[in-house]
């Protein structure tokens, strides 16, 4: 098995604030990793470095053996936890926008997913509820044929039924040739789709392991472990 992601001693400081202090992590092809930690633990900083948006202060992060740059951006599909779609757009414009931007974007898949999510291509982005926006963002991100998907809080602020839809979409569209990192603090809802989990606290990975092995070793759910680590 080869590692899609290799991270060694990764540090990132914002002026005098240290967001990441020596994070280490590896992720194999075909695996889904849950990156779990409370607000301000460094999750988003970590993902932004992997997505090529931020530069690390020191340390190493390699995706498919390469430093973040033009190549890695072409194989990483990133769902940020912020708004990035223009308000004037209709859903079909957003799809066109992604199609223009990414050569690995599969338009057919996007429309299939839209239907699955029960979204109308003619709706305006501005008119969408939070849950619908989250579904649209996920549709766009999953319609790329990427090697690494990075989903930052895909379930944030979404009601339970929409959450189920989103989970279904993730499971249905995940391929064994790709890998995925998902951050969340709603561990309970999503822990069954993780192969691996990594707990991040104050910019350090404090525990990483196979989810099933952790369950049998500690006789606890990942959610309970999370509460234990971050109590």
């Amino acid at each position, binding site marked *: 098995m080869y590692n899609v992601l290799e991270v060694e001693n990764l540090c990132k400081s914002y002026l005098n604030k240290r967001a990441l202090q020596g994070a280490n992590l590896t992720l194999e092809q075909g695996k889904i990793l849950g990156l779990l930690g409370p607000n301000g633990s460094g999750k988003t900083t970590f993902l932004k470095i992997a997505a090529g948006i931020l530069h690390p202060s020191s340390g190493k992060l390699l995706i498919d053996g390469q430093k973040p740059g033009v190549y890695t951006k072409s194989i990483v599909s990133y769902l940020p936890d912020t708004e990035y779609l223009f308000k004037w757009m209709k859903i079909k414009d957003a799809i066109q926008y992604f199609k223009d931007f990414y050569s690995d974007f599969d338009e057919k898949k996007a429309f299939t997913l839209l239907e699955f999510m029960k979204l109308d291509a003619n709706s305006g982005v501005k008119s969408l509820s939070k849950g619908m926006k989250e579904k649209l963002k996920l549709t766009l991100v999953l319609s790329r044929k990427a090697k690494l998907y990075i989903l930052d809080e895909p379930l944030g602020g979404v009601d339970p039924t929409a959450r189920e839809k989103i*989970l279904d979409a993730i*499971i*249905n569209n995940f391929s064994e040739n790709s890998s995925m990192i998902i951050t969340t603090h709603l561990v*309970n809802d999503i822990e*069954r789709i993780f192969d691996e989990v990594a707990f991040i606290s104050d910019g350090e990975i404090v525990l990483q392991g196979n989810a099933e092995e952790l*369950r*049998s070793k500690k006789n*606890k759910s990942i*959610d309970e472990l999370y509460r234990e680590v971050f109590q």
Partner: protein
Amino acid sequence: MDLEFDDKLPIYLQIMDHIKMDIATEKLKANDKLPSVREMATILKVNPNTLQRAYQELERLGIVYTQRGMGTFVGERKHMIDDLKQEMAKEVIDSFILRMKRLGFTEEEIIASISKNITEVNKHV
């Protein structure tokens, strides 16, 4: 399929137990096709790799077999249903005895309490 998971235990073991149960109670019969890994993963909302692992373990135990390109099927080994029943019964009884002992019951008391309760349970079933 309705399957409530206990997230404290490895998910693949629970899936294996569920399938074993369906075979033991003959909901699944010899040579029945199991849902594909992907289908089952979607229904149960678990990682496809977890399902893969459950199927692989069941195959290793000779409970199911795979045919390339066709899918996974329930095995037709002789006595499999009886073996599975025995195995599951043993688990239930072992954990029962262990818990009774922890409560301080002696062996005679455990047997006595079973004889006493079995008639009462019979009334309700």
